[in-house]
């Protein structure tokens, strides 16, 4: 398969670019931030996105989705990364839809996929239990109770957890805290009385929640996937998340870079455009090269998710690592090459710097993924 977008995917890219620069530019994001909007995104905008088929981008047509696959999701995420668009796209349309579509029962699909596609139900994935991403460190317990289970424990930094209608919770049904086996996924109502959510605003002005659950009673119908075998599903959901976050960071890298090269072409110091100084040129050229490498890595991981989902894990991991490193470099350099104005709140590059930092931390930073690669390769 060619490592380029198809005509259809290019059209989606153009449409997304047009719609977002028009309806959700960085200025709109600032407004959400400055008005301390409690949702952290615009519900009206989300409805419009859903109407365009974006909320159900990976969902099959039979459930009302637009079936554009992960490459399609990445194309949208990249444009959202360029515009810093805040929306529940990632938590609902990527994580939630992947979880239900790939691992859900027929009944769960019937119940939830349509509601994801029409934008009426928001999802969040509750996996981590500490400040760093450690998906097999699950202490959150699910103990047998009657015909079902009782869930208890705490989760941290659940993206969009504060607004989610549904939570997918990774809990331990057996085994020790660090075992990948013995984990089970549960799909529960987020507003159950036994669940307490504390909104944790993040540095990138997005929202997450810390969640505590105290004896939440669930039944077998609430299990998503296999009992004790949830890690495999978690791995699949995380892979999709990593690749799409990679695409988002790739978009942010490119946008921060474009803003910067424009500045280099116009700002004068020492009687010259600063873009004519080799000290800046060479760093810009290096950055442009890294961005190209990142695009290839991200596209490959998205294509693999569409083509052979089960085999995509390592590739998604590497794409997340590469895009994270590039995004960090791109946004750091963006600030530096702007001089003083780069560290002002008024200027956009700082917003990219903050967003990219959070995206880099989510689901494992470059070091985490390098470690995974090394382990997987046996060293």
């Amino acid at each position, binding site marked *: 398969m060619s490592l380029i977008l198809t005509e259809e995917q290019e059209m989606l890219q153009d449409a997304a670019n047009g719609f977002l620069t028009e309806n959700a530019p960085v200025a709109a994001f600032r407004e959400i931030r400055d008005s301390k909007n409690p949702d952290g995104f615009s519900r009206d905008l989300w409805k419009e996105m859903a109407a365009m088929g974006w909320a159900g981008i990976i969902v099959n047509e039979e459930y009302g989705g637009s079936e554009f696959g992960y490459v399609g999701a990445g194309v949208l995420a990249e444009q959202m990364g360029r515009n810093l668009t805040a929306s529940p796209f990632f938590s609902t349309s990527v994580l939630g839809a992947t979880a239900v579509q790939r691992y859900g029962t027929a009944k769960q699909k019937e119940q939830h996929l349509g509601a994801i596609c029409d934008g009426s139900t928001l999802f969040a994935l509750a996996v981590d239990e500490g400040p760093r991403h450690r998906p097999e460190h699950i202490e959150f317990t699910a103990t047998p109770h009657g015909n079902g289970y009782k869930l208890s424990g705490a989760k941290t930094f659940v993206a969009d957890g504060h607004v989610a209608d549904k939570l997918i919770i990774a809990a331990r049904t057996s085994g020790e805290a660090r075992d990948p086996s013995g984990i089970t996924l549960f799909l529960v109502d987020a507003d159950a009385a036994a669940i307490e959510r504390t909104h944790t605003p993040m540095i990138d002005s997005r929202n997450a929640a810390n969640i505590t659950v105290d004896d939440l009673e669930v039944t077998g119908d609430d299990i998503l996937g296999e009992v004790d075998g949830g890690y495999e599903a978690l791995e699949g959901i995380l892979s999709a998340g990593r690749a799409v976050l990679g695409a988002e960071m790739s978009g942010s890298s490119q946008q921060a870079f474009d803003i910067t090269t424009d500045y280099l072409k116009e700002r004068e110091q020492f009687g010259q455009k600063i873009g004519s100084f080799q000290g800046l*040129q060479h760093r810009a050229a290096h950055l442009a090269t890294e961005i190209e490498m990142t695009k290839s*890595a991200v596209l490959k991981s998205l294509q693999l998710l569409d083509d052979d989902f089960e085999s995509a894990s390592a590739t998604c991991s590497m794409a997340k690592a590469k895009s994270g490193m590039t995004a960090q470099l791109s946004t750091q350099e963006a600030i530096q090459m702007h001089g003083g104005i780069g560290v002002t709140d008024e200027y956009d590059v700082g917003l990219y710097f903050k967003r990219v930092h959070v995206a880099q931390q989510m689901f494992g930073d470059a070091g985490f993924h390098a470690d995974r690669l090394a382990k997987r390769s046996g060293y």
Partner: protein
Amino acid sequence: MSDLEQFRAETRAWLAENCPEEMRDGDITAENQCWGGRQWEFQSDAQKRWFEAALAKGYTVPTWPKEYGGAGLTADEAKILDEERNRISARKPLSNFGISMLGPALLAFGTHEQKLMHLGAIARGEIRWCQGYSEPGAGSDLASLKTKCEDKGDHWLINGQKIWTSNADISDWIFCLVRTDFDAPKHKGITFILMDMASEGISVKPIILISGHSPFCETFFDDVKVPKAYGDGNLAVVGEVNRGWDVAKNLLVHERGMLGTMSPLRGATGPENLGGYAADAIGFDETGRLDDPSLRQKIAQAEIDDWAYNLTVERMNDEANAGNGLGAKSSMLKYAASELTKKGSQLRMDIGGTEAATIGPDGIEYGSLANTWLYNRAYSILGGTTEVQLNIISKRVLDLPSA
């Protein structure tokens, strides 16, 4: 079955039948590849059989037109041939500067007669070419070259010196940049000319590298007479007199494209897989991880970079085939590949520790890790330095202002 699927099936069958087992070792290195040329002696019977089978099929230069010795493959077909060849780790049957550099320039700028004579001989592995670009005073600033070429009616008269001419001592012909007009602005007085290294007045002197070996030469031209033409329409000069810079630049894009398609962590001699090599050489700690955490992290990062790089080569090729030419982006690939190649061989040396730093009774062994590591320093210099590539990316790709 689509035509391409059919082609893949046929290619797979042809390779299975024609590529000897011994040629399926994947790692193509300077010393095991087939260079061709008048002085060439096949290193093994397998190498000879593989070369001859490929030649008969036009697969020494698969994309060149049939009349010039190629197989006339389309870009899609050539990609399939590459994929199928890589699938069984088969070496290229023939590789040299004629194929990677002069050939594409002749295809773009040569007369039909020039192509017939030179491309055919390259395809058949008869003539090995060297590149006479650099001079002692003209390296990165190539266009300031001074080797003088005078019009003497029926012939050209050439005087001057080239340097860093790789393999000039074992090459048959040289493609060379010479100055035909000293009064014109420096890019406007350069001519691209082809000469037989056996011509009277050409002499070469090898230069030994830090790796202990010498692919390098100084090349001297002392009243060398080059005929205006080697036959009807078959001129010594490629393109127009004084317009050689156009040809030179086109060739450099191909050179960078070629250098940019190296597989940085693997192409170099030495253990295929860095992580596996490190595991064998260093061993594990009690948690089962490589017993050197900083090295482990560096190896993994380099493998991620290498992977992303290889995908970028693939993506840019796919884009080029879809009609978006590579152009100055070849400088990105050249830059990334040469830096990564250096990083990879540095890591190999670090993994190998003191053992990798020992030498044999006759000095640094050809093909040893140390030899490769030392030679690889040159990748960010040859074919235009890393700094020059970054200048090109800044100006041509990013359109940043000039000083």
